[in-house]
């Protein structure tokens, strides 16, 4: 018996029109024209650990896919392979933190936010322990389908008291957040970009440095203010260059820390009159940056024209990542189209 609500996608499909042949687990996120840095998280963690004996690395059979292998190779006696057991990974990280260490626990964002949530909540966050949960494949960054697409992770961890939540844009953010989250004496959930990670922010703002809890203007503009996090800041900056050709002047405010949210900077920028305000996030429309900004604006009585770019409230398709970003409105072209349609 099948129900209509469970309808499958069994109809045969032709391959003739297929445009993109790859649906790799770890697809390249870099738009053309950006240089990349290899494994910025792994190198930053090693550099930090050389200065701080309390840092240990832990993973649940995904060290190679979270750039933790760089740390494991450099400091094998400080790396703990916990096996394919995410609940244990988080519990054991809690135990390590109790004994004075600062564990970096890595897995995929889907597994941390779904499978291991109760363990992060009760064994780590409830006691405000300094465990740094750093997770690859955030949002829509793989074509493997819902089992690997963490489209609701930010909503989940924003709901968790004591948790700091970070959605980095590029190599500068990923490397820069490591010392900042070590300095923060409490639990952190950070999305991770791994492998070859583009350098985006310093190209647009050469003196950019990640600062925990701070939103930063990357580009000024008179017509539109895009408030974005994660890879959507890269999309926003690329979109700004495209729209500039149409004499649309787009400002980009990058908000890599979703919690605590830099309310003051967001309000200061949103209060500048006349600009369309657009949030952009690699995350479901529910419970992420867009809703956080909307709440911030409403509570302060700031009511610009407001739109959200986000993923739909759906389990997403499998396929090649560029195809999927086009399909769900996260590609530069689609971001530009959406903003133009709202002007």
């Amino acid at each position, binding site marked *: 018996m099948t129900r209509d609500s469970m309808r499958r996608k069994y109809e045969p499909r032709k391959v003739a029109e297929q445009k993109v042949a790859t649906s790799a687990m770890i697809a390249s996120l870099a738009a053309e024209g950006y240089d990349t840095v290899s494994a910025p998280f792994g190198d930053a963690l090693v550099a930090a650990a050389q200065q701080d004996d309390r840092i*240990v690395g832990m993973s649940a059979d995904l060290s190679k896919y979270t750039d933790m292998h760089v740390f494991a190779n450099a400091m094998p006696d400080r790396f*703990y392979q*916990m*096996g394919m*057991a995410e*609940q*244990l990974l*988080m*519990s*054991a*990280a*809690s*135990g*390590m*933190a*109790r*004994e*004075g*260490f600062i*564990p970096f626990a890595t897995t995929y964002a889907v597994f941390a936010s779904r499978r291991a949530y*109760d*363990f992060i*909540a*009760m*064994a780590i966050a*409830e*006691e405000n322990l300094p465990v740094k949960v750093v997770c690859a494949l955030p949002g829509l960054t793989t074509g493997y389908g819902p089992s690997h697409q963490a489209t609701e992770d930010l909503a989940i961890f924003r709901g968790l008291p004591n948790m700091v939540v970070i959605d980095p844009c590029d190599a500068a953010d990923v490397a820069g957040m490591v010392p900042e989250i070590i300095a923060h004496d409490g639990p952190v959930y950070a999305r991770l970009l791994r492998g070859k990670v583009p350098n985006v922010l310093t190209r647009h703002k050469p003196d950019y440095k990640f600062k925990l809890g701070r939103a930063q203007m990357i580009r000024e503009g008179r017509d539109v203010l895009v408030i974005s996090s994660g890879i959507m800041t890269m999309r926003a900056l690329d979109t700004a260059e495209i729209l500039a050709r149409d004499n649309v002047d787009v400002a980009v405010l990058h908000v890599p820390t979703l919690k605590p949210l830099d309310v003051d900077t967001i309000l200061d920028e949103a209060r500048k009159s006349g600009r369309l305000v657009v949030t952009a996030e690699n995350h479901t429309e529910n419970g992420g940056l867009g809703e956080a900004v909307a709440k911030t604006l409403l509570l302060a009585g700031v009511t610009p024209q407001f739109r959200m770019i986000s993923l739909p409230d759906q389990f997403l398709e499998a396929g090649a990542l560029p195809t999927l970003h086009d399909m769900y409105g996260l590609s530069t072209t689609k971001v530009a189209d959406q903003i133009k349609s709202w002007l």
Partner: protein
Amino acid sequence: MRDQSQTGKRANMSLAMRAWNIRRKALLMGEVQGQGYIGQALGVADVLATAYFHALDHRPDAPEWEGRDRFYLSIGHYAIALYSALIEAGVLPEDELETYGMDDSRMPMSGMASYTPGMEITGGSLGQGLGIAVGAALGLKRKGNPAFVYNLMSDGELGEGSTWEAVMSATQWRLDNLICIVDFNNQQADGPTRDALAVGAEAPKWTAFGWFAQEVDGNDLDALVAAFDAARLHPEPKPRVIICNTKMCKGVDFLEAREMAHFVRVAPEEWAKALNTLEEGKPQ
């Protein structure tokens, strides 16, 4: 320091007094609130007496002393039992007993680390303690600290998959500084534990997973002392488990006889009767 010679009859008689005192304090706290996991507290009192007054190296006036043996209460529900042991041990003052479960008390109904000195972890979401203990045991080894980590869990927690993740990891890391205590009273929320998941052959199961496993009568102090000693002194680089078969409501016969229940109901007038019954069995 532990004194290995203190395992004779006299010491055990003293432990019997400690266990009796733990039971009495638990009943007094239950009376304060008119409820509590009293059946479990009475059942596990001998295990806690053996832990706190024979096995554990700890300093009542310094519950966070770095050299202490860690004692994790994975079953936060058993807080009433651990509070009793902590009061008996002098970690908590006796006069706070009357605040149990009250607003602003340091002794809430479920055990939480941030509330209570000597409560090492926040338990209650079952199946978490053993995994935390694995991490702490790894951390202690990393520091060269010879302390043990004890994790007290319930038989119901054997149904949580996370327990078995931790069981395998403890073997993988040869955690000979980890001692797991399973309070097997065969009673979980919906009925007998043995009727819920395929629980059985407990010691052989843990042994097969690579642990040094013992199964004892958890209401027999001599057996408990021997098992705790064997767990601490076992020479193999393996984690250790003591499966303690306990009897719910032990020491208060009219409650023992009551139909087995996860949350034993005690009528208001019965608390005094229970204390009187316990008094009759006071060790000499």
